């Protein structure tokens, strides 16, 4: 117990691995019961989720640095200083919870759909969870890269073995795209390590220390070097997000993957990209970030509108949800590069919201796919009559995805829009208007889909007899449905935990943005904002008002 | 013309030293460049032989030619330096013996392989041995 308390993050990250090992041992001892394997995997995932809950309770929201830190020397030789260094802050806290929740529901979603090689499926799901959690908690760049790449392997198998017809194409496309992005990140990591060693004499992959040294000017980068390093990291993350021209792997991977894979992909894997942007690119290379803000925002806007327009014409439900991901993740990128506090809050919040809503929608598609073995919208219609409970749950998820007030999507997208509107970047107003158009389009395609699938007469007789969601399916849809409501109703409770992290990021960027926009003066607001938060009175409304004042200047 | 040049060299050799040793020493007195050139010619002929001939046995011979070009270099250099007074130079001669031994071993193995191949394919033409490609 003592060990668990002091090494909470390690325990959370590796509990799924232990589960995978148990499943392997189960095989070695000749176990054949698939039901038992499923229950083992489910319990392991549930235990991981339960273990991740103390993080919320124990998280000190006024603490500006990393928490639950664990640090052990790992590889120490030849100036290769790699630590096993874990820790979380306001940015990663909720992503961890999101991951543990979605793994549970993903395993539930595969309960019936996965019929062959059940053990291997469960093993890969659990290993995937370890990889994703590892990415969110690593504070050592070497360790981060390790988890970042390791996670590709189980995902590759999940798509390739349990996917639909074009699974091989999708799997190889997925892995080549992601690897192409991430090897350049490896080069950037090596060069950053080298530069840091040159400047300070300390060889280290320690993310926190390098960020700190970059901030205080101990390590100063040549603008050109900073530009290339930024691109090196950003490319890896943009592929993952995915940002507009790099998104083409996503529809294939989503459509071909099994439901569980799609949920993990949409729910958490895409967030790794935006997480990386917030963890590496903004705090480390703010000058390059400021310089590149304009093209990135333009691409994000294109992604928002393009994703929405393409989603509108999709005949396939899963493809529709996949393209809606492109659109919604565009909001996250926009929020990340708007360089205001609200936009950052909104971006992180939108990550959670999108993970739950889109993950939930993929689960929902999986439910009817299991019944009808088709995902074409035209094959459905009038499901509202045969499956009322299901319709209600999907309705909530769809509305959350659109951004209806009191549901999670609203908070994230609204904050991004407000943040962008008050942003110091050029053409901020135009961006806001265009992004808002994307919101309207998303309402259009989601509601249209909803109407065609659930309302109207039952056109296909087989739809009339479809059984409504059973207990397992309720259990798997309910967490997503409940959480999008909770997130929408009490967003502050979630956002309070991120305040310090967001503030630090915003300050870092503001210090730079001044260089580019000399007319605007943020220094006063920054100080006042920080004081309010230290006093523990940070409220979203206040921050918004603060932003409006800024606009007035 | 070549014989004429050799004759003029021989004229300069004192009578008591009219042996091969004496002949070569006399040549070396004129400088080492001719030897380097000769060995390079041998080398070039060898390389050309390996690259253009299709009979495996001729290719072997060409390879031996390259080895002997190297031998010639070693011997010539060492003797040249010995003649210019550096009597401790002897490594080249030693190495030549090594190389001859190695070349003999290599020839044995090579011929063994050719015989094995000939049993299987009834040919020693290199361009007919084309089972493995790409």
């Amino acid at each position: 117990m003592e060990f668990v308390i002091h090494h909470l993050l390690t325990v959370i990250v590796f509990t799924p691995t232990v589960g995978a090992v148990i499943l392997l041992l189960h095989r070695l001892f000749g176990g054949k019961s698939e039901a038992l394997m499923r229950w083992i995997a489910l319990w392991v995932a549930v235990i991981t989720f339960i273990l991740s809950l103390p993080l919320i309770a124990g998280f000190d929201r006024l603490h500006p640095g990393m928490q639950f830190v664990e640090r052990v020397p790992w590889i120490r030789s030849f100036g290769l200083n790699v630590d096993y260094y874990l820790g979380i802050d306001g940015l990663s806290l909720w992503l961890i919870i999101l991951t543990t929740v979605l793994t549970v529901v993903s395993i539930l979603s595969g309960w019936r759909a996965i019929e062959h090689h059940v053990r291997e499926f469960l093993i890969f799901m659990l290993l995937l969870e370890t990889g994703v959690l590892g990415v969110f908690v690593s504070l050592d760049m070497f360790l981060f890269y390790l988890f970042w790449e390791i996670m590709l392997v189980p995902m590759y198998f999940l798509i390739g073995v349990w996917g639909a017809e074009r699974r091989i194409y999708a799997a190889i496309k997925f892995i080549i795209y992601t690897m192409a992005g991430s090897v350049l990140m490896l080069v950037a990591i090596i060069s950053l390590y080298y530069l840091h060693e040159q400047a300070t004499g300390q060889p280290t992959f320690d993310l926190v220390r390098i960020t700190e040294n970059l901030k205080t000017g101990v390590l100063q980068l040549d603008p050109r070097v900073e530009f290339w390093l930024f691109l090196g990291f950003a490319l890896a993350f943009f592929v993952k997000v995915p940002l507009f021209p790099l998104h083409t792997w996503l529809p294939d991977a989503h459509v071909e993957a099994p439901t569980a894979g799609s949920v993990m992909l949409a729910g958490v894997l895409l967030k790794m990209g935006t997480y990386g942007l917030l963890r590496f690119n903004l705090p480390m290379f703010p000058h390059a970030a400021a310089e590149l803000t304009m093209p990135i925002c333009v691409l994000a806007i294109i992604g928002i509108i393009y994703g929405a327009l393409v989603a509108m014409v999709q005949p396939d439900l899963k493809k529709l949800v996949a393209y809606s991901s492109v659109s919604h993740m565009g909001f996250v990128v926009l929020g990340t590069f708007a360089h205001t506090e609200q936009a950052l809050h909104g971006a992180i919040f939108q990550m959670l919201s999108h993970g739950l809503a889109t993950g939930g929608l993929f689960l929902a598609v999986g439910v009817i796919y299991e019944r009808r073995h088709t995902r074409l919208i035209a094959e459905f219609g009038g499901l509202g009559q045969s499956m009322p409970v299901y319709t209600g749950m999907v309705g909530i998820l769809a509305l959350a995805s659109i951004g209806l007030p009191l549901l999670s999507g609203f908070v994230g997208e609204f904050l991004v829009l407000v943040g962008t509107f008050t942003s110091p970047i050029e053409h901020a107003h135009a961006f806001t208007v265009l992004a808002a158009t994307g919101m309207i389009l998303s309402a259009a395609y989601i509601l249209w889909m909803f109407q065609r699938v659930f309302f109207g007469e039952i056109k296909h007789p087989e739809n009339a007899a479809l059984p409504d969601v059973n207990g397992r399916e309720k259990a798997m849809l309910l967490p997503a449905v409940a959480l999008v409501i909770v997130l929408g109703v009490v967003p502050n409770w979630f956002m309070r935990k991120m305040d310090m992290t967001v503030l630090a990021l915003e300050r870092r960027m503001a210090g730079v943005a001044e260089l580019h926009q000399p007319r605007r003066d943020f220094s006063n607001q920054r100080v006042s904002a920080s004081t309010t938060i230290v006093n523990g009175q940070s409220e979203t409304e206040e921050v918004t008002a603060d932003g409006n004042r800024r606009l007035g200047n | 013309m070549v014989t004429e040049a050799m004759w003029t060299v021989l004229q300069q050799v004192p009578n008591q030293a009219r042996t091969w040793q004496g002949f070569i020493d006399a040549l070396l007195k004129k400088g080492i460049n001719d030897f380097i050139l000769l060995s390079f010619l041998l080398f070039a002929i060898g390389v050309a032989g390996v690259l253009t001939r299709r009979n495996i046995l001729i290719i072997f011979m060409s390879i031996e030619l390259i080895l002997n070009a190297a031998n010639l270099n070693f011997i010539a250099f060492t003797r040249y330096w010995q003649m210019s007074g550096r009597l401790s130079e002897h490594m080249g001669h030693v190495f030549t013996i090594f190389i001859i031994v190695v070349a003999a071993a290599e020839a044995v193995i090579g011929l063994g392989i050719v015989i094995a191949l000939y049993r299987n394919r009834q040919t020693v033409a290199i361009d007919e041995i084309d089972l493995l490609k790409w």
Partner: protein
Amino acid sequence: MGIEGLGINYSAILPEIILALTGVALMLMEAFWPSRSKRRAGLVTLAGLGIALMATLQLWGAPRQTAYAGMVIIDDFRLLFTAIVIIASVLAVFLSWNFLEEERIQPTAYFALLLFCAVGMALLTSSHDLIMVFLGIETVTISTYVLAGYRRNDLRSTEAALKYFILGAFSSAFLLYGIALVYGATHTTNLSAIQAALNQPLGEAERALMMVGAAMLLIGFGFKVTAVPFHVWTPDVYEGAPTPVTAFLSVGPKAAGFAAFLRVSSLIFGADFDLASAGRALQSDWISALAVMAILTMTFGNLIAIAQTNIKRMLAYSSIAHAGYVLMGIVARDWQAVAFYMIAYTVMNIGAFAVVALIARRGDEHVLIEDYSGLGFRQPTLSFPLTVFLISLTGIPGTAGFVGKFWLFKSAWEAGFSMLVIIAVINTVISAYYYLYVVIVMFFREAKREIEPVPLPGAFGFTLAVTVLGTFYLGLLPTRVFYYLNQAQTAIAHLIH
């Protein structure tokens, strides 16, 4: 020069002596007590290799010294690479176990040749003189010519042996001619003496000789370590030779070749020469030629590997590509990175070839990638280890291949070859395509035709277990190996600078 001046020192070449004696003993044993038992020959071979390994390890940490008039050197570099090649030979013995039985091959001569090859490899790692390098290379290649053609009624095997022989002898001749020219330019073939000679200005003629000689050395070594454009023999030989021999060829002689190449490169061309010296002028040419070679090697190897349908040929091209990565380490003059990479490569490549050898079965029948379809879930004891090795060869973190690559990339980056690193990482992505294609075929496709499961003999099971564990051990906990390499660093520091 008296007998002392020759510097006779049996302990310096103790591993070689043990290996050679074991080989001779094997052949004598066969002459006096003939037996077709592969167990007896195999056990003697393993014992000889084991004792040689112990002899190598007990020299560890010994002060750097030369013997036999500077022809042989003992330092940690040599001991490390000797240990690598001996371990590669041990693994090759395990791999050959089944092959000998299936092909009904006289085991004694086979193992004796393996041992003589090990002698050559050990000599190569210990050579401190260009002539020793030549002799070592010849000992290795003459043994391996025979090994490659060991299935002598098989057309592919004899053809491979012939191609290997012609190109091998040709490249050795090039190397030798280069050595002769270097000898002409510097009056010596001793590596340290050459370095000293290059550290002062040379005459016009000597410089020309040195230039041409160095180029020929580069070509000769390029052949031996399968660098593009001197790689043409590799795919044919790797495809045609019996799979256990291919496995051995791709790691043992290659590691030894790299050891010699590395020592020659860092002693002759890697030294910090004085400004006005001849070495200084040659150095930049040499390094840039090597860098270009590295780029060509990895890029061609990876691109052509994509098109392969035969897994042995694919692994041959992959081995060419890996030679390109290792050349980066030579360019960066970081021998520890090269050593670690060779350890990692030995482990994962032997493992991969073990699976290939098992699936190929008697007469190397099933060597097409298509033959692997549906293998994944039918025989997880083979498919999962192979997946691990392929992932490691790709360089996914957590495996030996990643740590090795990471270190090479880091060294090259710090040495200022940033373009080389960027090309290398792009190559990593290309390689992912064909390595993971095998995974696709194994797991994502159904079997085209029924192939009855392959039994897993004990020797193979052992090899697979060792190599899988080794792959993860080197990938996750490399600290201990790093520690030993780091110890060696101090011993060899003046070699590099």
